[in-house]
C-alpha cells in the first residue's frame, strides 16, 4: 500500500491545490452572507484535504503501512481495460440505448464467467435486452435513450 498511498496523497494534494487556486475562485462568487463568505466551507474542506494528503505522503514515507499491496505494473493493463469499459458503456447507452447495452454486456460477462454455450448466451442477452426495453418504455413509461 505504501507506494499506492504515496501516489494517492500526491494526487490528493495536487487536486486540492488546483481546486483551491483555480476552481473555487472561478466557481464560487465572492459574496459574504451574514458575516461568512460562501467560499468559506468549501475552502476549509479543500484545505484540510490538501493538509491530510501531505500528511499521508509523509506518514507512508516514514512509517510502513499495514499491507504492502500496491498497484502492480502487471495489473495496470487490466485496470485500464476495466476503466475503458465505462466510456464504451456510456457511448452505447447514449447513442444506441439501454437494451443495446444489455445485448453487449451480457455475452461479455457470461464469457468471463466461463459460459461457452453461445445459444444460452444469445438467448440470455436477447431476453435481457427485450426486458430492459419493456421496463423502460412500457413499464416505467420513459422515452428511450438512444436509438432503442
Amino acid at each position, binding site marked *: 500500500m505504501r507506494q499506492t498511498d504515496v501516489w494517492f496523497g500526491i494526487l490528493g494534494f495536487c487536486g486540492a491545490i488546483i481546486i483551491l487556486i483555480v476552481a473555487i475562485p472561478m466557481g464560487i462568487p465572492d459574496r459574504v452572507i451574514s458575516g461568512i463568505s460562501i467560499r468559506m466551507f468549501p475552502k476549509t474542506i479543500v484545505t484540510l484535504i490538501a493538509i491530510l494528503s501531505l500528511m499521508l505522503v509523509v506518514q507512508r514515507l516514514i512509517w510502513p503501512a499495514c499491507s504492502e499491496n500496491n498497484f502492480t505494473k502487471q495489473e495496470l493493463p487490466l485496470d485500464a481495460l476495466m476503466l475503458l469499459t465505462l466510456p464504451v*458503456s456510456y457511448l452505447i447507452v447514449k447513442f444506441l440505448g439501454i437494451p443495446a447495452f444489455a445485448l453487449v454486456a451480457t455475452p461479455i460477462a457470461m464469457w468471463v*464467467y466461463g459460459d461457452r454455450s453461445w445459444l444460452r448466451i444469445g438467448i440470455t442477452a436477447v431476453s*435481457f435486452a427485450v426486458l430492459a426495453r419493456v421496463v*423502460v418504455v412500457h413499464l416505467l413509461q420513459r422515452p428511450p435513450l438512444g436509438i432503442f
Partner: protein
Amino acid sequence: MDFVAIFSYFQSPEPFFAILLGVLLGYFVGAMPGLSRPTALAIAIPFTYALSPLAAVALLLGVAKGSAAGGAIAAILLNVPGEPGSAATTFDGYPMAKKGEAGKALEIALYASVAGDLIATIALILVAQPMAKMALQIGPVELCALIVFSLTFVAGLAGDSLIKGVIAALAGMALATVGIDAGSGFSRMTFSNIELADGIPLIPLGVGIMAWSELMIQMRKKIMYRDAPEPKLLKGSYSDSRLSWAEARLLGPTILRSGIIGLIVGIIPGLGALMAAFICYSIERQKSKTPEEFGKGAHAGVAATETADNAATIGAFIPLLALGIPGSVTAAILLGAFTLHGLVPGPLLFQRNPDLVYAMFIALILSSGALLLVGKYGMRLFVLLVRSPMGMIIPAALTTCVIGVYVEGISAFSVTMLMIFAAIGYLMNRAWVPFVPFIIGFILGPMMELYFRQTLILTQYNLINIVNHPIALAFLMASFISIIVFLRGRKPTTSEKLDLPN
C-alpha cells in the same frame, strides 16, 4: 397519537407488497456472495420513486433486513459469507453443514436473525423518540460536533488508514458543496452548467460508487483469478436435520445477549454488523462451557453471529431516525432515500410527521414477520439461488443500474454522472480508500455546512467559545481521543483483535 392517521397508511396493499418485495430482494442479495447490501440498496432507490414515502422506506428496510438474514445461507452452505456481517457464521455454520446438519444450521441462523432483528426493532421503537426529544434540546454547535465525531469514527474504522478515511469523508463533503447554496442562493462550482445547479445527484453517485464499481471489481477478480476453483455447494437434503425445541431453548440466553450487544455496537457509528458479529462470537466462546466446540459446529456460534449481525444492522438506524446522523452506509443510503421523498430524518421528523414515524415502526415489525415467513418458506428457493451464475447476474445488475439512474434523471447527464462515479469508486477500491466515509460525508455535507455556519455565528466567529458548550466539547474530545487511537499505528484485523480463527 392519531391511530386513524397511522393506519390510513396501510389502507392500500402497497406497503405490504413493498415489505415483502424488499425482504425477498434482500434475501436474494444476501444469499449471493457476489452482491452486497449497499449494491442492492443503491440499485433499489431509484425504483422507489413511484412509491409512497412509507412504502419506499419499507422496501429499503426490507432489503437491509433480508440481506442481513440471507447472508447466512452462503456462509453455511458455501463457506463464503453472502454479506460481510455473516463472515463469522462460516466458523460454525459450515462445519455444521459438513456434519450433515445444514438444515439445522439454516434454521438456527433464521431464528437468530429474526430474534436479533426483533430485539433491535423494539429497541428502536422505544429509544428513538426519547432520543429525538433529547436531541431537540441541543443546538447546532453540539450537532456540528456530533457530525465531526461520527465522521471521525466512521473514517477511522472504515479502512486501513484514518487519514485516507478522513480524506474520503472530506472529498464527499466537498462534492456536496456543488450546486446552488441553500443559504445564499448563489451557484457554487457549477461552472455555469445548469444540470449541476441542483448539485451532484445522489442516485448516480451512490449507484456508481456502491453498485457499478463493485460489479466491475467482481469482474476484475474473475478475470484475475479465472482458474480459481468455484466454491462448492454442499450436497444433501436440508430437511434431514431439524432444530429441536430443547436445542432452541438452550440458545435463548445466547440470542438475548448477542442481540443486546449487537444493538449497542450497531448504534455506535462505524462499527457495524461485522464487528458486532465477531465480538458476540468471541463473547459466546468465552462464556461457553465447551469452548473447544467453537469452530467445529457449535450451535451457539451460529446463533450469536447471526443475532448480532441483524441487531447491529437495525441498531444503526437509531441514530439516523433520532438524530439524522447515519452511522453506517446502509443508514446513509436510507437517509438519502428519506431526502428524496421529502423527509428529513432526525428530531424534527417526530414533530412534523409523527403518524408517518409510527407507521414506519409498524412497517418495521411487519418486516420482521416477513423475514420469518420468507426465510422459513423460501429457504429451498434461496438454497437454489445461491447457485445462480454470476455471469448472468452481473449484466442484469448493470442494466438495472443504468435503468434506475436514467429513470430518475431522464437524461444522459445522469448516465454521465454514473460512469464518472463508477470510475471514482473503482479507483478508490484499487487504492484501498473506503467509500463508506465518502458517501456519508456527501450526504452529511449540507447539514455539516449549515451547522458549521451557525456554530461560527453562535460562537461569535471564535471557535474557542465552544468551551461554553460542554456537550459539543465532549464530542470533540471523543473525536480527538479516537484520532489518537486510530493514529497509533496499524489496526489489527477483527480476527486478530479477538483471537479468532482467520
